[in-house]
């Protein structure tokens, strides 16, 4: 999927080159593809329509800058418009208000309210807060048990909802308890409900009236289709929405619902649920989801960065060396320096689809890739010219010298050389396969 739309766009927009300006006529096809991509990602039909019109309005008449290709120009406009709707920066809950800060969770059945309540409580606890979670879902069997269990797992206080209690009463009593116990955040989980279920919506209004929450958060499943617009509109009109949480973003849904909901409510999307573990809740980055919805991935910016760092002559030389097996440690060092010019390794790796996940798994505790690169560079610097040209020269005693010279160990030098040989083989194979192979590999990740 990644890069798919971008490829298509550049194909289409090639024809624009030399025209000087983008016109309604020459971007027609490109707009069509953007539209298709957004609809495929489940963005609502009318939201797409408005979006396409906005892009068209901005794009038509634009001069194609000499430095940019029409594709880049067009994609820039699309991205900017998309980011505009998505709100640009990541939003954060303001918890500095007079405690307790009250947060009401609502949404359809199965959107992930109870799990998100637990995750959010854990997150707030980590920030030094003392949250109270309140099970007020008296509809679904065992929903109260579920939240109680989850609260126990993450180690936060949970209001002891008894069977047969009514949601408004739970809200009242829980608030009183939070005051008594000095809790600074109160998270109220409510029953999943359809916006057309008037009785349950009335109950939710009543609960909200009692709680007078600082944040009323709508929990939305990232896989939601066109209905996201109806849901968001109804909840907004009937209850009011201060913010949104997108759940199940760890799947492969493109998440167009985020765009629909955002367009309808204008409320910020605060968090993204990205897994089954209680820690799997992160701040929502609008720009990332924008790329995902568009079906482009960050490979685009990686390619951009790469094209800035390299010129064709260099690229040609390296490609030739890779193919003919002449790629030496000296070349390797040069490439590493090039890559470092492009930015830090961590963020570059993060742009490769799938790599970001792998990086995340390593976490902040793991070794820093940038430091690791420096060590490798130190090792190569400690080698003689002959060694750099032919890695096979490096026998035991030479390796020992390299280790000492670079402040590493022989084991590290061994492991580096082994990996160098392996990756050389891999790259040779891929270089021969051409870009198709690269694509295949990226998908494999």
């Amino acid at each position, binding site marked *: 999927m990644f890069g798919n739309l971008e490829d298509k766009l550049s194909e289409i927009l090639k024809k624009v080159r030399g025209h000087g300006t983008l016109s309604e006529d020459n971007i027609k096809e490109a707009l069509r593809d953007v539209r298709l991509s957004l609809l495929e990602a489940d963005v609502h039909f009318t939201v797409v329509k408005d979006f396409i019109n906005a892009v068209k309005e901005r794009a038509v008449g634009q001069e194609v800058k000499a430095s940019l290709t029409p594709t880049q120009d067009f994609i820039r406009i699309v991205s900017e418009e998309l980011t505009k709707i998505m709100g640009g920066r990541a939003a954060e809950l303001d918890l500095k208000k007079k405690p307790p800060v009250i947060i009401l969770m609502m949404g359809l059945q199965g959107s992930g309210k109870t799990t998100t309540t637990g995750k959010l409580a854990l997150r707030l606890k980590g920030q030094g807060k003392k949250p109270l979670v309140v099970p007020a879902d008296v509809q679904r069997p065992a929903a109260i048990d579920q939240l109680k269990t989850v609260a126990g797992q993450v180690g936060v206080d949970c209001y002891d909802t008894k069977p047969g209690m009514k949601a408004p009463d739970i809200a009242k009593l829980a608030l009183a308890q939070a005051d008594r116990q000095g809790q600074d955040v109160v998270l109220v989980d409510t029953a999943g409900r359809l916006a057309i279920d008037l009785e349950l919506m009335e109950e939710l209004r009543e609960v909200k009236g009692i709680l007078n929450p600082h944040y009323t958060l709508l929990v939305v499943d990232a896989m939601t289709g066109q209905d996201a617009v109806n849901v968001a509109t109804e909840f907004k009109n009937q209850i009011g929405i201060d913010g949104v949480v997108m759940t199940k973003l760890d799947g492969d849904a493109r998440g167009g619902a985020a765009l629909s909901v955002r367009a309808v409510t204008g409320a910020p999307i605060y968090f993204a649920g990205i897994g089954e573990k209680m820690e799997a809740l992160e701040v929502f980055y609008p720009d990332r989801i924008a790329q995902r919805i568009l079906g482009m991935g960050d490979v685009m910016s990686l390619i951009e960065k790469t*094209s800035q760092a390299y010129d064709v002559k260099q690229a040609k030389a390296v490609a030739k060396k890779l193919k003919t097996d002449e790629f030496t440690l000296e070349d390797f060092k040069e*490439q590493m320096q090039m890559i470092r010019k492009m930015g830090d390794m961590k963020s570059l790796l993060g742009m490769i689809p799938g790599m970001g996940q792998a990086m995340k798994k390593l976490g902040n505790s793991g070794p820093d890739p940038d430091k690791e690169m420096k060590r490798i560079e130190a090792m190569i610097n400690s080698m003689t010219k002959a060694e750099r040209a032919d890695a096979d020269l490096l026998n035991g005693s030479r390796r020992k010298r390299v280790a000492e010279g670079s402040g590493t160990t022989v084991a590290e030098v061994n492991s580096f050389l082994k*990996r160098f040989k392996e990756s050389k083989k891999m790259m040779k194979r891929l270089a021969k396969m*051409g870009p198709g192979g690269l694509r295949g590999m990226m998908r494999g990740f």
Partner: protein
Amino acid sequence: MDIGTLIFAGGGLIFLVFVALFIRKQTQRRLPAPGVDPEKVLADHAGKDSADLDPFRDEADVPVPPAEAAPKQSLSAGLAKTKTGFMAKLNAVIFGRGLDEGLVDELEALLVTSDIGIRTAEKLLEGLKQDLSKQELKDPAAVKKRLEEKIRGIVAQKVAPLALDKGPTVLMVIGVNGVGKTTTIGKLAARYTQEGKKVVLAAGDTFRAAAVQQLEIWGERAGCVVVKGPNEADPASVIFEAIQKAKAEKADLCICDTAGRLHTKVNLMEELKKLKRVMNKAHEGAPHEVLLVLDATTGQNAITQARQFKEAVEVSSLALTKLDGTAKGGVVVAICDELGLPVRYIGIGEKVDDLRDFNADEFVGALFEET
């Protein structure tokens, strides 16, 4: 993956990106030969083989082939068209035959907003031109009627009532998180118990907090046995035990709940395969039915869900839940079309009797209903 491998793999990929970039640039340069109008060359090429133009484009890069698994001639033909701007083609063809632009827009909006998906929508609309005469294409009522028929034809797949003669029939219920598996099982249990059948439930969702209690409450409501394990039990052992119990008690039906899982989680999909094997071990031929539960509010991702689950455990039928809301569940049209899976049940509420047999006429009627 350790950090070293990451660096090498990542670094390698970054290298390759620029190698690819270089090849692309080279290709682009090669095309417009001196003295030749580049526009013309591009246009000529576009008609023939776009792969020549763009080295990035390989077969697998064809835009989201929802139909890649289905080797149907018409489908792949449809897909080939999407490559060259399907709307352009569609417009040319349909308008050429006299289908009104306004009507196309209206129908497209209707189909897309019901989650049928833009590709399936286009395919359906395109199919109209073959089915209808020039005269009929000008008549909105005729066009709509034919469209309804076509959709009905896709979703109305014959599905025999669940056979309860396997002593016991084992029904495996699967799906992603939050679609309503446990609720559906509760309703199924109530329904078959009311019909006088003996039902055993297996509390196979040992992962989600209180999922077992939730199933127990449904079991109580329906008046049937629920087999559960100790806390954090292995789902396979719970299911094995439940089937044994169902056999011993000569139950008619054993319904196995499973934990919700995203189809992208490889290890959890493997676990599902294992559960299926265990069922067969406990009772030969089991599971006799693998029911995939889909949420009607889900969009195009449901297609991927169905495809992946089918591939993993051979799904035999679908349950479409939450149809009592404003969502139409149109995505099942694409799923029925592509994967040939019939819809067996629909869920229309939280009460014990809010489970119905799927009815294609009602479903299509709701799709075309004004909201």
